[in-house]
């Protein structure tokens, strides 16, 4: 009888081929992707179109509006970004990214053709199918339009399945408006778009003020049955959630029909690093999309 322990290799051959949540090799599995175009949206934000290189892997990559990916530039870093594009396009996504830190500043200087790593998709999405047959309020503040754009694309693709669709969008000033080139197309698809800026410039012809002002105007035009049959999605800075969601609650929209997307620091996206915890809930697993009832029950969420 000897005393040597046998080495156990945790990766069995058959596991190496897949990227499933419960396989060990899913943990650091990276899709290799290429930045195919970079579209400058504002001084601070670019829209990156990123395509998974292997066509088979690309097909395998499907997501729901509201979900996020971890984008990696080897040697520079990795960070979470909401997917901004239509879920109908698999493995070929768009990410609207603001220059805010090391990775995103570096990203703003790379050329198209650069290869990046993608992990995901991670987290929860907006339950678009549940919303069918209902009115939808899509409320975005600033960069909050980035995750909403995926939901908008879903609505456009399935326009006949939804009643009235309103986008309410507010930014600091007109130069920060994102996706301005798409507004006409949204309107053509019978989506009402109301935009407000906090600090108008001389050329600005629309309303000025906070996003709640537009909501007040809009709510005046709607009756009780409207709110009874309405879902709302709210994306924006934390300070906006409270005001907007309170207003929606006052109109008796059930909290479980209001969805918000939370931003947190993330280092893994898989419920391990704990950096995204709100109270003690992992934003990467149970979020980033939460219904407002859940958010109310989380400590320190908004």
């Amino acid at each position, binding site marked *: 009888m000897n005393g*040597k322990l046998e080495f156990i290799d945790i990766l069995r051959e058959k596991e190496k081929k897949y990227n499933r949540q419960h396989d060990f090799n899913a943990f650091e599995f990276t899709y290799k992707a290429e930045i195919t175009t970079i579209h400058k949206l504002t001084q601070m934000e670019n829209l990156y179109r990123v395509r998974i290189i292997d066509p088979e892997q690309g097909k395998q990559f499907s997501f729901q509006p509201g979900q996020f990916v971890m984008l990696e530039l080897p040697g520079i870093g990795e*960070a979470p970004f909401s997917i901004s594009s239509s879920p109908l396009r698999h493995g070929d996504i768009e990410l609207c990214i603001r220059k805010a830190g090391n990775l995103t500043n570096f990203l703003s200087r790379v050329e198209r053709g650069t290869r990046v790593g993608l992990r995901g998709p991670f987290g929860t999405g907006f339950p678009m199918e549940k919303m069918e047959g209902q009115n939808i309020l899509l409320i975005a503040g600033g960069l909050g339009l980035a995750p909403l754009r995926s939901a908008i694309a879903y609505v456009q693709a399935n326009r006949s399945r939804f009643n009235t669709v309103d986008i309410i969008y507010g930014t600091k000033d007109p130069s920060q408006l994102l996706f301005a080139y798409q507004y006409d197309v949204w309107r053509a698809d019978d989506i009402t778009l109301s935009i407000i800026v906090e600090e108008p410039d001389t050329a600005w012809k629309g309303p000025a003020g906070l996003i709640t002002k537009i909501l007040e105007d809009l709510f005046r035009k709607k009756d009780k049955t409207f709110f009874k049959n309405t879902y709302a999605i709210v994306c924006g800075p934390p300070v906006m959630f409270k005001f907007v969601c309170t207003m929606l609650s006052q109109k008796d929209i059930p909290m479980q029909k209001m969805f918000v997307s939370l931003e947190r620091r993330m280092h893994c996206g898989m419920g391990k690093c704990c950096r995204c915890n709100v109270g003690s809930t992992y934003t990467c697993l149970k979020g980033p999309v939460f219904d407002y009832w859940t958010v109310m029950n989380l400590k320190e969420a908004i």
Partner: protein
Amino acid sequence: MIFKVIKKEELKHLFDVLAAENRVVGPVEAGRDSNGRPIYAFDQVSDFNNICLDYTTTKISAKRYFLPYQEDLAGFRIDGKDWHKKINYNIESPYIFFGLHACDINALNKLDKVLLGSVYPMPYYAAKRKNMFIIGLDCIPQPYCFCRSMGADTALHGFDMFLTDMGGQYFAEILSDTAFNFLKNIKTAEPAYADRMRYIKIIAEKKRKFTVRVDTTDLANILDMEFQSDVWKQWGEKCLACGTCSQVCPTCYCYGVEETVNINFHEAKKTKMLYSCNLIDFAQVAGGHNFRLKRDARLKYRYYHKHRGFVEAYEESLCVGCGRCGEACLAEITVPAVISSVRGEES
């Protein structure tokens, strides 16, 4: 379960058999503190005489062997705009842990729940955890131990073999066939009636030696109710936000990831480093917003995660009551004191 009794002198033989072909980690005396008391640490041992089987608690848990403070997750070869990723789970051969106390075994069991669960199991941890052979060892409750309150004073699984000191011999619980086979190398005996009764008596005596306890009744709810309590501010005032508690904790697994480029620009690596939720930038996002800017918010979060969040997810606390954090804390913040104050008990 299979039970055996092992004469004390036989344990050395077992060690020699195991150490001949494996890496063995055990409690050793690493130095002395200013009062001349020994400071214990887990370290690799090749000589049985260096193992301190009567150790109290190591200052730092054994986690560097399964959750290293720093670990490369992947390496990259960079070639212009393209790159190639290489993943390494960083394990070559198994480890034998000789003499882990019940709290540290329970800590592993708790870590297993989150790191080996069905959602994204962590291969870096799994590779080490599955290549561990653990010999547990009973202990003498210290003035800072509250493992009994946390239900972690007894290990029911997560080890291969557990030894209880009965004077001239050890009472052994054998949990794995690997352990059973190893024991064929030494002389063992079936426990007689007297041995079994003596074991029961020793366990009962041990239970009576605990001096500190934490009332965990309804604790998850109480933490939720008292989220805005002023006591958090008081503890926040004391806390130095140094993160020592997390570093010595056997169950803290939070981490950060950093990527670095080699000076030749052709290689890069992705490194995982254990972190602490008490450090200031733990929840700071790009652009500068910090979701937990204040020390009390971060200290509170640590308790919230351990004693509420984990309870919600797994119906048990993430704390094993080893007391290391309180012993290591420069501001003398201890778990029993914090929890008692949140419960509104007079201190």
